[in-house]
């Protein structure tokens, strides 16, 4: 159940698909210093609004030290600073669920969370579910049940399901429908998504798998 994310912020080989397709901007990725564990930075008196505030984020088992503006949301920092582009910005106002991540194991919209407020919490993104190249049982269930079409909402759907199953390992179909109700799928793959969540639940119960 622990966060696995042993790979770096750019994927197992150090190069994500996006990183391969786009020239990695040196500023953003390099600003995220991986390594030494620093205590949560205490917030001092307010400074100039645009002045970056140093923060520490704990994402997928790694600590990142970086400086952000207070107005930067967690989704933008995950994607644009840490290169973790699995979480998707959809509506950017808490209405679609594509940006869903876990904070201390509970689902949350990263578009409605300030990065400064995510300090001190254990953040898990879609990149943190697989063990290297080995997908989690939940991710495999989404594939087996064909639980997506265009795939844009899928990372958020998977994270919502992960949050649901951590709280409720044996959900009824009603539990699944309610638990997944904070995530929209424009392709309408809901039936397949619900099946995938139930399949993953039974696989996890049977095997004690992650």
């Amino acid at each position, binding site marked *: 159940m622990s966060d696995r994310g042993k790979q770096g912020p750019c994927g197992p080989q150090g190069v994500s698909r996006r990183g391969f397709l786009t020239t990695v901007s040196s500023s953003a990725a390099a600003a995220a210093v991986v390594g030494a564990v620093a205590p949560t930075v205490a917030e001092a008196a307010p400074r100039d*609004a645009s002045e970056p505030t140093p923060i520490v984020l704990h994402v997928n088992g790694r600590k990142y030290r970086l400086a952000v503006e207070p*107005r930067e949301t967690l989704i933008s920092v995950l994607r644009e600073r840490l290169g973790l582009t699995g979480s998707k910005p959809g509506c950017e*106002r*808490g209405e679609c*669920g594509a940006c869903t991540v876990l904070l201390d194991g509970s689902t949350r919209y990263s578009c*409605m969370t300030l990065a400064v*407020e995510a300090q001190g919490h254990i953040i898990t993104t879609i990149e943190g579910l697989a063990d290297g190249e080995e997908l989690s049982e939940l991710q495999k269930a989404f594939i087996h049940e064909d639980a997506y079409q265009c795939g844009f909402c899928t990372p958020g759907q998977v994270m919502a399901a992960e949050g649901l199953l951590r709280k409720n390992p044996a959900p009824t179909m009603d539990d699944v*429908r*309610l638990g997944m*109700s904070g995530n929209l799928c424009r392709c309408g793959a809901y039936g397949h998504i619900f099946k995938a969540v139930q399949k993953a639940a039974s696989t996890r119960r049977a095997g004690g798998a992650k």
Partner: protein
Amino acid sequence: MLPTFTYIKPTTLDQAVRELATPGARACSGGTDLLGCLRDRVFTAEKLVSLNGLTELRGVTELANGGLRIGALTTLTEVATHALIGAKYQVLAAAAAAAASPQLRNQGTIGGNICQRPRCWYYRGDFACARKGGDICFAKEGENQLHAIFGGDVCVMVHPSDTAPALMALDASVRLVGPRGTRTVPMGEFFVLPSKDHTRETVVEPGELVTELVLPPPPALAVSTYRKLRARGAWDFAITGAAVALGLRGKKIESARVVLSGVAPVPWRVEAAEKELVGHELSDALIERAAQRASANATPLSGNAYKVALVRGAVAEALSDLRDKG
């Protein structure tokens, strides 16, 4: 991108109150309503004062008198799943569970939920409406199918909270702290009708902060429930809702609270329906009479007369649910 603001996360209530007293400061807890308003430029903030360092404002504690204290920073998920709330104050657990989506309930707090800003599309949109300091309530002549059928005046918004009517049905009080000290306001006096002041929804003064909600002990035999009607089965605001709490002696109703959501600028208590109920046993005929009373005196707008029937239905369904439970 959000507009710029400074950020501070006080670790004591005193510090938070001091920070909130500065001009342009706004309190931030779950942030699910605040960030949306800032992003849509509904209002501005020069400084966000995060309340999330005030751990004493989080959690539920039982009071010596048998009542309950709910810290303002308790999340809606915690309220919806708390054993004591579920056992003694079902209407509140049900209302919290019916609010928003799982993610927003994990994030949003009970204090924020009762202080949330209107969801009126003109208020949230690019309109200088009356509530934002303009001259006109655009909804009166415009698109008003989701707007008020009670209590509208210079503004016909509906209060968006599910937990507020539940708290009102439970006779809860709000504890506030501000530069001039603390005060306790009954839920029935916490919200402000547009006829009194159409630029604010609550009595919370600038620099003041909701710290906790206090629930009195329920009657010895009490039942309560929340019926929420909305366009989808989940993750939507109430078009109409009914929070009902009854105190019983045997089958006879000794006390009643009927508070509507989604139909007025404040959680709308209908004392006429309550009076109809007290002294009687719940029967089909009584339920029908009370539901009728709840919807009487509605003044629908051009596009929302359907809500009158919904009020009758929501109240009747809530009461029927309680009859089946009792």
